[in-house]
């Protein structure tokens, strides 16, 4: 794959561009609606009394939009880049790719209209899409399976797949199963505690069996490429993957500890969650040892820095999880902002930063340029996003502890709201910071795409 022409024939640049661009647009939109919702908690919601902008509905756009608008678009775009390049085969069909692109945007927009204007949300967290659109999403995910499964299957006829291939192959099979299970079974084939067990499994599986494997698959592709060296240990890669594949699907019920779900399921979820931290740590050791000797690249290579920052946040989140998944911690932190902080550190701090880093690496190449338009915007966006999300994590974690102990103390309910307010105000300020970072990132993207002549790298010898 030495010459560019071969690679261009392998990758459909248009699809990569279209998915990443829409992913970025939705990232900004879900960020804005999240910020809007935070204003309600601060008591300064700008659109009170307007039915279709009711904060409750807006919050569902924040979560469902982050799943299908932002993450699926971003990951699909990056898969269109990475999968053909590491397998050496094109995706199944370009026409199918464009059809899927249109279908995905349509599904997201229909979801937005249904939730905001028609009031047809579904009370499955992270599956707020109306139930009648869920079979369509499952069908889309089956197309996704054949689209990316084709090159992976062809490549594995020749020999073992690279690490990324395992993660992505498993994810392609898991995702339609997960979405079907989580949205259909609680509605049509169960109720109550049984439905709760399915829903909690779904919440966690969408993170653990879609977002996590696709993101780690891409990490295993981009990190060695950027550093121009192989992963440190193949054995640890195997351990990490099979550990994740076995334990992650069993984690879900930890979302509803102390609930009416039978205790054996709760205990198994706690056990599996603690177990998965070992798998995660093995993956992290592998990445950190790969970095050894190349760490100075983090100083000037922004995409790589995004990836390692995200990786460290990932480990923090998982380490935190090993503790707060216990029944003891759950007494205090369940139902509090602690969980919100945890969710933002993993979704924004890890997966958000990763896709931004990967997209920033890919984007100039898609337009035949060597580097992004502005180093300043690139650096500025990184620092705003990184500091913003980390501070939000600490802010909400602290808020969660305060509120959790306040509830145990049986103080009047309104006290917990009042105690939260300083934390919520600060969270909104951080939201502005993160949104500013995202806007800077988007401006940089736009300028890179539209810059007239090829942008050349400042540090030619170190450019990647």
């Amino acid at each position, binding site marked *: 794959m030495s010459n560019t022409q071969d690679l261009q024939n392998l990758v459909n640049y248009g699809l990569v561009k279209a998915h990443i661009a829409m992913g970025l647009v939705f990232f900004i939109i879900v960020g804005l609606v999240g910020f809007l919702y935070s204003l309600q908690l601060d008591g300064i919601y700008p659109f009170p009394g307007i039915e279709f902008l009711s904060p409750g509905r807006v919050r569902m756009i924040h979560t469902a939009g982050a799943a299908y608008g932002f993450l699926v678009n971003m990951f699909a775009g990056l898969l269109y880049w990475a999968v053909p390049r590491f397998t050496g085969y094109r995706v199944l069909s370009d026409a199918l790719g464009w059809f899927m692109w249109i279908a995905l945007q349509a599904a997201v927009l229909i979801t937005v209209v249904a939730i905001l204007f028609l009031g047809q949300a579904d009370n499955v967290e992270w599956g707020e899409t109306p139930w009648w659109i869920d079979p369509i999403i499952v069908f889309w995910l089956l197309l996704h399976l054949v689209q990316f499964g084709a090159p992976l*299957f062809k490549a*594995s006829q020749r020999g073992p797949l690279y690490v990324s291939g395992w993660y992505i192959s*498993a994810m392609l099979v898991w995702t339609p199963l997960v979405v079907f299970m989580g949205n259909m079974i609680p509605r049509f084939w169960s*109720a109550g505690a049984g439905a709760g067990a399915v829903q909690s*499994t779904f919440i966690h599986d969408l993170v653990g069996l879609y977002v996590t494997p696709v993101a780690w698959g891409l990490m295993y592709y981009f990190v060695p490429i950027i550093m121009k060296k192989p992963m440190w240990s193949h054995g640890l890669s195997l351990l990490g993957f099979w550990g994740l594949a076995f334990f992650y699907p069993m984690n879900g019920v930890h979302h*509803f500890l102390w609930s009416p779900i039978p205790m054996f399921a709760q205990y198994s979820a706690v056990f599996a969650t603690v177990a998965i931290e070992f798998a995660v740590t093995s993956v992290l050791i592998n990445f950190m040892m790969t970095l050894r000797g190349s760490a100075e690249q983090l100083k000037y290579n922004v995409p790589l820095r995004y990836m390692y920052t995200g990786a460290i946040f990932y480990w923090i989140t998982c380490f935190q999880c090993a503790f707060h998944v216990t029944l003891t911690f759950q007494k205090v932190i*369940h139902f509090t902002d602690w969980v919100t902080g945890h969710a933002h550190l993993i979704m924004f701090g890890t997966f958000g930063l990763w896709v931004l880093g990967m997209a920033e690496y890919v984007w100039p190449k898609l337009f035949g340029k060597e580097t992004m338009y502005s180093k300043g915007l690139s650096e500025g966006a990184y620092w705003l996003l990184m500091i913003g999300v980390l501070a939000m994590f600490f802010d909400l974690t602290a808020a969660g502890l305060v509120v959790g102990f306040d509830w145990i103390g049986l103080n009047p309910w309104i006290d917990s709201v009042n105690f939260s307010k300083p934390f919520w105000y600060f969270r909104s300020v951080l939201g502005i910071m993160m949104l500013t970072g995202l806007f800077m990132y988007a401006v940089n993207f736009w300028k890179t795409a539209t810059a007239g002549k090829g942008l050349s790298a400042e540090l030619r010898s170190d450019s990647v």
Partner: protein
Amino acid sequence: MGKMERFSFVALVAGVIFFLFADFVSWALPMFVLKDIPMKTKTDLAAEAKAKNYSAWADFEKLARYYPEQFKKFCDYEEKFAGAGKVSNCAPNEETFAKALAIGHRWYVAEGCWNCHSQDVRPVSNETLRFGIPGVSNTVSYPSEYQNELQAPVLWGTKRIGPDLIREAAVHDIDWQVAHLYDPASTSPGTNMPGYPWFFEKNKDGKLVPNERGLAMLVYLQWLGTWEVKPTKEWALK
């Protein structure tokens, strides 16, 4: 090890076998344990509320008495998405109660109430003292109270900004609920819950009253936990 790194092996073992094993442990087995709890439809719930004279039944009759004009409109109101059609026998009966639960539940979900209000009293952290019903019931949430159509998917929620609602019937009366739904700050100073004015309309005299969706929502809210509330003394004497 080469075989482990093929598409088909990964897809079959990790993608399907591990996934099914985890689902078996996480929810299929729990469902099997819970399978003997009867599943109630909305009609069953309405019949139960009437037969046992739940507090929600009294609230329902009260709403019909307070807002006869809107109650009439509520009977004619159709909502396909909630599976609720026109009711010809327009009175506080089982049919209209089931319809109110259906429409109320639908908007409870659609407005994202469950984003800030849980419906799950845990056996820890003094939650039974806060949310249980003093002197009447001190129970934590138990599986059978969720085994009905209105808990599919279940409405436990994962975040509380407002209090838990699964024992709401015992906490506030219907008048409080009407005022609170329109303007939460009027009954709960300092709250950051938004108001829901679109569940209200002006009647002939220009007074604000709950509309057909509002009535249904109020019935649903006052139904939550009503099965744990003992009937009042006057009723027991009759």
